[in-house]
């Protein structure tokens, strides 16, 4: 699905910015309905980061690289309820080790 993401209409789109080793989210919590197709559009203002969604048991659901000066978007189909944490999945120097946004994505029925 992701390879054809340009042709698929997302039910929701979240624009996220990353700068100075911080995620700047559109809202405190991003609420998604089960079975939604959601586009995460992540922009870096400086370094190369990562954007990954992790389950409560710390397993990874998906991740992508976030390169400055480029569109970095991923389309994901959320099939079941859950709560997810955002982490940077790419090394961006020692200042980047705390790039964790806990439980900021919630998928509800």
């Amino acid at each position, binding site marked *: 699905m992701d390879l054809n993401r340009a042709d698929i209409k997302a039910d929701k789109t979240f624009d996220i910015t990353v700068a100075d080793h911080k995620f700047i989210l559109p809202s405190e919590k991003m609420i998604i309905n089960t079975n939604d197709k959601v586009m995460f559009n992540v922009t870096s203002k400086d*370094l190369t980061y990562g954007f990954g969604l992790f389950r409560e048991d710390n397993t990874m659901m998906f991740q992508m690289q976030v390169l400055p000066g480029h569109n970095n978007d991923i389309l994901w189909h959320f099939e079941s309820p859950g709560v997810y944490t955002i982490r940077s999945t790419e090394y961006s120097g020692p200042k980047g080790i705390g790039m964790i946004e806990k439980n900021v994505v919630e998928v509800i029925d």
Partner: protein
Amino acid sequence: MNFIQTFMDGEEGLFKPNSLTPMQKMILRFVVVGLVYYLFALVEGMLMRVYQVTPIAAIPPDQYFGMLTAHPLVGIFGSTYSIVFGAFLFLVPFLMSKPLWSIKLANWTCGLIAVGTFTFWFAGFLTHYAPLYTLYWPLPADFTQFSVWGGNIFILGIALIMVGTVFFVLNIFKTIAYTPEGWAKQDGKGLMASALGLSGLKNLFRKNKKEHMVSLPVAAIARGTVDTALNAGIILFTGVLILIYMIAEIAGSSLKHSSIDALLYKNWFWWGLDLIADGLVLIFVAGTWYLLATLITGKKLFMENWARAALFVEMVVSWTVWSHHLMSDQAQPGFLKILSGEMVTAFELITQGLAFFITLITLWSARP
């Protein structure tokens, strides 16, 4: 004799350095350098493993990341390059029954790798320059996190290693192609064409096949050395690029990070680095297996012409697989991810699978 005396002079004082030939001294230097940096990598690796379980108070996070950055470079360049270059600077002249083109240049390679490795290691140890071996742009030039002087010295160390590597490449190709003084003129072009696989490729279209002029292990070393040369070029260029940013910073004229496209840089960098990981490593390993199999069995290699062709294919494949490092870069074109990242990468299974199969069948054929 105590331990130190035995260590320096050998068992019962039997190690006599003055009795060694220049070739033997050169190879031993490579072995010693390779082992010293193997020890570095071993100790750093264990420290980092412990740190992963529980942070060590004596190692602050900046030091840990400095270690994390230097460790693979110490292992690949300081240790593995030293051991492999030393081995092949012996093996190529040995297998071709002719002298090495330049022992002096070989010693320069050893010295540059030894000094270069210590230079970047020490810079990382002292200043914690830590953009990781991946050097994803613009992190190497992020002077809010790293010392610009530390970075300069670090990159200088890497550059010294690459110059030493270029000397190795020159020495290997010259040894293959040159005519030693006083010898009958050798067909240098023919030897190189055979070593690189060009004459083998032409043989596919010839009715009267030409004999291969170099042995299979020498062909493997030559083709892996092509990738070694290309990689040295990429890393030297990347190093110069980073140095330009650092020198500008020192001069008080900071260059904008976005002047360089991060995605293009990543493609360039991984194309270059995969020439080590998916290129020279696999080709050198296959060639070494073939040599060992024939030495152990005393027999001709099974499917020798297929093995020779596979070495050429492996070299070409190594130029095309880099996108498997960009599979989660959403800006990377989809056709590159599929063709380069998946399909050609999968082809390595064939080339390496053949190497395994040929080696094992050769060994099997010598069973009592």
